[in-house]
């Protein structure tokens, strides 16, 4: 099936080469980091995780969110999602690959990465994270590829994939729960030490991931002959709406506990992020951008009439995605380190090489995604569903 | 034969790539490594005591394994004394035992490591004996 990826129009190749360009620039930046060490990033003794780990955390959510289309289709027999499942699974694959790359570029001694397997350490959450992430990658590759292959041959997928699909449905929340446990089990970091963190992670993931999927589905429809289905996109919009509301609700719970209890340690990070603390306020503008985007998204999403308009839905999804990208891909990780263990403040902002490396990882993700989608779409263009979205028919 | 032209060109490129290193090196092999053990520290010792912690053949083959084990025993188990096959004891330390005799890292370690293109990362942390530039 891979051969589908090497036939494409002009636009396809321009896009591919654009991504390859970003990747090469980022690769050069990475060589520089590899040679001189992580000192070329904005990280410090106090803020020892930054953009890379933030992006990793955010992308685990994107990966997990594939389940939001797979679950209704397979467990509730919601046929409308039939055309979206492959897009969801392939998005998960690209996201997990990005996650792994972000962990890799964050390591001080990347060549020793296999030590994690050579010296397996079951008391470290990182160990489980590695297990669940690679397992999830395998599952999605296997399922996506097999189902698509069967579809191409116009036969039913082999029976053994069904149990794997069920497994992947259970597996998806686990990857994000384990990722939340990286943070939620650390003593002395009040901002992270909250039982609701995993729930917050899942809520934001199930809003941000499907939001991205909607955007992707709209793009696919615009530029190819494959239509993921109007109703499917609307249903997905509903999922984004509910999850975004739950996400904001959870954030509200955190704010209540911190500010009603008035315990300084619990308030400090929130104060730093949204108002600035002791004159340090570097993150305040972007945190407000995130909040305002969230607000816009919610206003657009909660009214079904607005949501039904696909252009406005796209705007709402973009707003959701970027709001969560800032909140979780940056604020959450950096905020946990401010103030530090001595109640002192060191601020963090990524450097240019750091940003280029992060951009390149995204470009790799999009490259993988583009190729996978190209394959899926080429096959879907040949074999499509009838107008009820239920039965596969041959395209005219 | 179908596509004969393409295949022949392919074969030529393949052969070129495979033989490139040999052609590039001009057919000469790098000189055979000849590690030296003639440091002043070793020469000072009486002839019959000039012995490494284990036999020469063992050290030649297994020094990397021995160093790995030493490292784990010292750093992880807190044991610092090594008793060799003859019952002699040594302080397990690359910097303070091995290199005290083999103070010629360049002619001792690097000689073979360069030849075989292995780059152990020992010296990123362990301080190599100060040698005069030769």
């Amino acid at each position, binding site marked *: 099936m891979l051969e589908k990826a090497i036939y494409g129009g002009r636009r396809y190749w321009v896009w591919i080469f654009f991504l390859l360009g970003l990747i090469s620039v980022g690769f050069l930046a990475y060589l520089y980091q590899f040679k001189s060490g992580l000192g070329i990033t904005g990280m410090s003794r106090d803020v020892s995780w930054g953009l890379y780990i933030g992006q990793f955390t955010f992308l685990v959510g994107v990966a997990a969110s594939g389940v939001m289309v797979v679950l209704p289709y397979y467990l509730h027999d919601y046929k409308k999602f039939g055309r979206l499942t492959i897009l969801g699974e392939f998005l998960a694959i690209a996201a997990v690959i990005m996650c792994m790359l972000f962990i890799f570029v964050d390591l001080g001694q*990347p060549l020793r990465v296999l030590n994690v397997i050579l*010296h397996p350490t079951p008391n470290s959450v990182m*160990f489980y994270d590695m297990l669940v992430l690679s397992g999830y990658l395998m599952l999605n590759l296997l399922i996506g590829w097999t189902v698509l292959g069967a579809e191409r041959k116009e036969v039913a997928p082999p029976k053994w994939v069904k149990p794997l699909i069920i497994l992947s449905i259970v597996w998806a929340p686990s990857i994000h729960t384990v990722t939340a446990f990286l943070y939620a089990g650390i003593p002395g970091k009040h901002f992270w030490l909250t039982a609701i963190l995993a729930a917050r992670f899942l809520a934001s993931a199930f809003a941000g991931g499907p939001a991205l999927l909607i955007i992707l589905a709209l793009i696919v429809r615009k530029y190819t002959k494959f239509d993921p289905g109007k109703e499917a996109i609307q249903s997905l919009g509903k999922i984004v709406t509910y999850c975004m509301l739950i996400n904001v609700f959870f954030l509200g719970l955190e704010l209540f506990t911190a500010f009603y209890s008035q315990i300084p340690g619990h308030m400090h990070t929130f104060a730093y992020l949204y108002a600035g603390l002791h004159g340090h306020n570097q993150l305040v503008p972007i945190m407000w951008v995130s909040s305002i985007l969230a607000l816009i998204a919610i206003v657009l999403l909660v009214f079904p009439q607005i949501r039904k308009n696909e252009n406005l839905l796209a705007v709402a999804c973009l707003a959701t995605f970027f709001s969560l990208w800032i909140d979780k891909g940056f604020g959450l990780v950096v905020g946990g380190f401010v103030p530090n263990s001595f109640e002192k403040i060191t601020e963090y902002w990524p450097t240019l090489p750091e940003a280029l490396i992060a951009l390149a990882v995204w470009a790799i993700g999009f490259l993988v995604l583009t190729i996978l989608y190209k394959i899926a779409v080429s096959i879907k263009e040949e074999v499509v569903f009838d107008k009820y979205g239920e039965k596969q028919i041959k395209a005219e | 034969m179908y596509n004969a032209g393409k295949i022949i060109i392919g074969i030529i490129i393949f052969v070129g790539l495979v033989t490139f290193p040999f052609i590039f090196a001009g057919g000469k092999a790098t000189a055979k490594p000849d590690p030296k053990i003639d440091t002043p520290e070793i020469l000072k010792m009486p002839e019959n005591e000039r012995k490494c912690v284990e036999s020469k053949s063992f050290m030649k083959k297994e020094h990397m394994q021995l160093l790995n084990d030493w490292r784990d025993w010292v750093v992880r188990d*807190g044991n610092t*004394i090594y008793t060799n096959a003859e019952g002699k004891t040594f302080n397990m330390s690359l910097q303070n035992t091995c290199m005290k005799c083999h103070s010629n890292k360049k002619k001792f370690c690097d000689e073979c490591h360069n030849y075989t293109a292995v780059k152990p*990362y020992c010296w990123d942390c362990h301080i190599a004996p100060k040698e005069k530039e030769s």
Partner: protein
Amino acid sequence: MSINRREFLKMAGITTILGIGGVSAVQGVRNRVEASQASRAPEALTAKRWAMVVDMSKFKSEEDYQKCINACHLSHNVPHITDNPKHEIKWLWTETYEHAFPGNEDKYRAERFQHMPFLMLCNHCENPPCVRVCPTQATFKRKSDGIVMMDMHRCIGCRFCMAGCPYGARSFNYKDPRPYIDGSKENLEFPTRMKGVVEKCTLCYERLAKGLQPACVEVSNGALIFGDLEDPNSAVRKVLSERFTIRRKPELGTGTSVYYII
């Protein structure tokens, strides 16, 4: 039975992978030296759980602190990074009371206590979160004496331990530390570190093995008291039973082994 080309290739791939794995497994079993050949030096200082008491009343001047810090940093080749405070490496350093014991501030407390510098180091916790989170056991608690050790050879530089330590005891080598070590004062008996690994106080495990007290304790003129917390007759237990002491963030349940007498 006939197999098509695709299946043949699949089988070939699988056998190759198995083959490579098999060969390396066989090579793994080699003739090697035995762990039983390693033993502790007879002169080594031993304890069930090492601990330290910092007697603040004996730190009178800036110099008293600096003496200890220098002894530590010089004997362990700790780089002195001044060009970027974000990349600082510290094993032993000072923080004023309000920063060392956050949450215990009191604005009416005597001025000299508010800003009194306290000596900070890794607490060699009994239940260390840094060890719990490390994915490779590069940092681990030595069973024999409770020292929380660093295996620099194994550290992959993920910095999970830095996030995990609630005491800010850990530093990361954001760059090659060697240019920041004064060559003339270098301790040739001890290694340096390389870029990309985490480091911290190791309670002078290398000196204990030779029967010596930690470097800072040795030069402290009795301001630092060192001993076995589980031995009722040890020096530390003696002070602990007589004087009022505090520890940093005891509410976290880490069981720190560094005590402060004010």
